[in-house]
């Protein structure tokens, strides 16, 4: 049986039937920017950062199945310009305080912005009012940084079997909620060893009393750009 392949930015990529473009690219060591995709969960394609052109048509590579002999463009000026704009949108939509953020250097939003040479946020900031949830004895939720990737929702539902997190609201008012009538994390069955506690690509779900354990400058993406870790599973 001959191997199935497609072409990604001029490079031949092998794939197995049923694999998405993203899965095949990761296996082949090719980086496609992404934020809401995580290899352990069902993709849903909301951040749109991984959009590629497959045979000339735009598609989220995390949900688009690889097709034999398809010509896929990803690392192009046009797509990277659009990805930069998406990242800028995510920065102005929330409140991101990189220089003082506990996750600085471990944050995929920040690292992806560096990888794509985002030099400014470009758009006017929305400055949304997003109160913190410090109710839980061990964990803090800082919704300011939420990019609505829904990885914690999927992890809690599909792996932990708990449904601690959910999405509420519509449009720009979309926001993360927790599963308690009080709205407080302390009143859910959230636990530190939940998968959901590990998957946030930014810095919403933070462990208390463990601030700055690794100095800034020595963190994951300080040492190596995210684009050099195409198959990284977690931050």
């Amino acid at each position, binding site marked *: 049986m001959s191997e199935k392949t497609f072409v990604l930015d001029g490079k031949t990529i092998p794939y197995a039937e049923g694999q998405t473009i993203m899965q095949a690219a990761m296996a082949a060591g090719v980086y496609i920017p992404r934020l809401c995709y995580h290899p352990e969960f069902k993709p*849903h*394609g*909301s*951040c*749109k*950062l991984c*959009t590629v052109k497959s045979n000339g048509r*735009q598609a*989220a590579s995390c*949900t688009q199945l690889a097709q034999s002999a398809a010509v896929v463009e990803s690392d192009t000026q046009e797509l990277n310009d*659009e990805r930069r*704009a*998406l990242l800028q*949108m*995510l920065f*102005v*939509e929330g409140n991101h305080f990189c220089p003082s953020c506990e996750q600085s250097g471990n944050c995929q939003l920040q690292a992806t912005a560096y990888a794509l040479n985002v030099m400014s946020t470009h*758009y*006017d900031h*929305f400055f949304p009012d997003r109160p913190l949830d410090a109710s839980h004895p061990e964990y803090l939720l800082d919704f300011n940084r939420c*990019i*609505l990737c829904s990885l914690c929702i999927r992890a809690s539902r599909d792996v932990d079997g708990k*449904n*601690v*997190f*959910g*999405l*509420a*609201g*519509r*449009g*720009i*008012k*979309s926001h993360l*909620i*927790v*599963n*308690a*009538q009080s709205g407080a994390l302390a009143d859910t069955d959230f636990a530190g060893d939940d998968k959901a506690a590990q998957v946030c690509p930014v810095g919403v779900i933070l462990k208390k009393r463990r601030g700055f354990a690794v100095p800034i400058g020595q963190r994951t993406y300080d040492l190596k750009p995210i684009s050099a870790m195409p198959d990284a599973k977690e931050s």
Partner: protein
Amino acid sequence: MVSDMERHASYPIPTIGSILAPILERHGFAVTSLLQMLREVQERFGYLHPDAITCLSEQLRIPRVKIEGVATFYSFLYLQPRGEYRVLFSDNITDHMLGSTALMEQMCQQLWVEPGKVAEDGLVSIATTSCTGMCDQGPALLVNNFAINRLSPERINSICELIRKRVPLSAWPGEFFSIEDHIRRRDILLGSGFESGSALSALLQRGTAETLQEIKNSKLRGRGGAGFSTGSKWEFCRAAAGTQHYVVCNADEGEPGTFKDRVLLKAYADQVFEGMTLCARIIGARKGFLYLRGEYRYLLDHLQNVLQQRRENRLLGRSILGCAGFDFDIEIHLGAGAYVCGEESALIESLEGKRGTPRNRPPFPVTNGYLDQPTVVNNVETFAASSLIALRGGDWYAAIGTATSSGTKILSVSGDCERPGIYEYPFGVTVAQVLADCGAHDTQAVQVSGASGVCVAPAEFTRCIAFEDIPTAGAFMVFDHSRDMFEVARNFVHFFAHESCGFCTPCRVGTRLLQNMMDKLARGNGSPYDFGEIEKLNQLLRSMSHCGLGHAACNPVLDTIAKFRPAYDKRMKHQEFEPAFDLDYALSQARQMTGRDDAGAHLGENE
């Protein structure tokens, strides 16, 4: 209804439980009916009390995050108490043109309530909502989800008086709630004098496969706007493997300026249901849904009666027309204020009781639709037309209209014309012809197919309504030269930002950025730089959005910039770059807090 609500009381669980029990039982404790149950719970209490959500969560055995997620997605569901009387003014540009802004201000002043807020005594809340589909008889509002049209200062006075006296809605003057059909031009569909059951008899006589062939021969294309071949859709679905097949009628008519489905469901419901039943026979479905937009709540009783009548006449239910094995019934699901649910996969999510987020496609509903089973989703008008085709044959239908757009199209005409209403034309009719028929004078522009459609300037009035020229779901809004086309575009941009589902980044953030830019221009702070930014956003929304809402969100702006540039130019503060930060605007919150608006509370123009 309204009067016996005790909105601000706390409901102990047992009380809530006993009130919720019949609702839960009526829906068979089915999670797919979650949206319907939430709607009914709200009709009972005026809002969704946290204890009610806890109770539903326990009874349905689903996490409350899921229920809250659904409840907060839909504009007509509330987690916080709203007014005893919930007033929502339709916010379409046609309502504005008829004076809705001043009428809403009048009501707010008379009832001492700020727009968007609840009166301190909890009596009333007043806000806006997306187009309620009453553009031919606006300005319009909804009070506790029931429509009142033809608003005037006098009518607002009366409404305020009724609210102040806490008169229950059921005792308000009936004429307030009367809704006209305004059928101005009938063609084959509106003039057919369709007899209930006749199309089904024709189907049984001709045979199922043969009837499908007639539908294919008719070249009927979907009337929701996209224009996919109806015959092919039914054929694909018929061939698709599944444990059940479903028929869904999309009556979530949310496109601003569209109201023809409202009239079809009012005056031609039998013909629509018959079309659904035909489809059921052809694809092998035993169950169908009518997804009715929440704004048309007032049609629910009427439609239930028509369904009941059809059951009694053996046109629904088991062994339809005595044909063993021909079993089919229709359930009505009400939406709750979400335009995006007009997108077929979002509509299916909503039917399943979820948030109305469009699915990843493929797979398409014909193979993986409702409950992942093969499903046909068609527009109201498409089903009505298919009844006619079953009766009179595909070749007869195909001969009407143009070569690639067969049959007729029903237009919802509104705006600056003497005779707004419903017009049915064979495809191929020119914009100029419609304008002449509806009595439009001095026309500056026509917005065809609503906010997501195309803005047509006078030089193009010879163009035709047809899939190959100007495709449309039916809206036809007329603007004369007194109108400001910039404000038209700005209204649509606000609509898209309000209706974006929020799933994908480009649409969620991009539509809001676009709204902010248009508002900046409206404040007179525009610069050529903004045109470049709008262009860039458009490119991004088209390229990266998850569904058609995002793809179309920049259309009204780009169309009007291209065709009505002077409307934008007069908003330019400088021909060169203008920073977005506006000192005087930044003080607006401080002015509001201090209640000041004198000259000293403003910063002068930059030197």
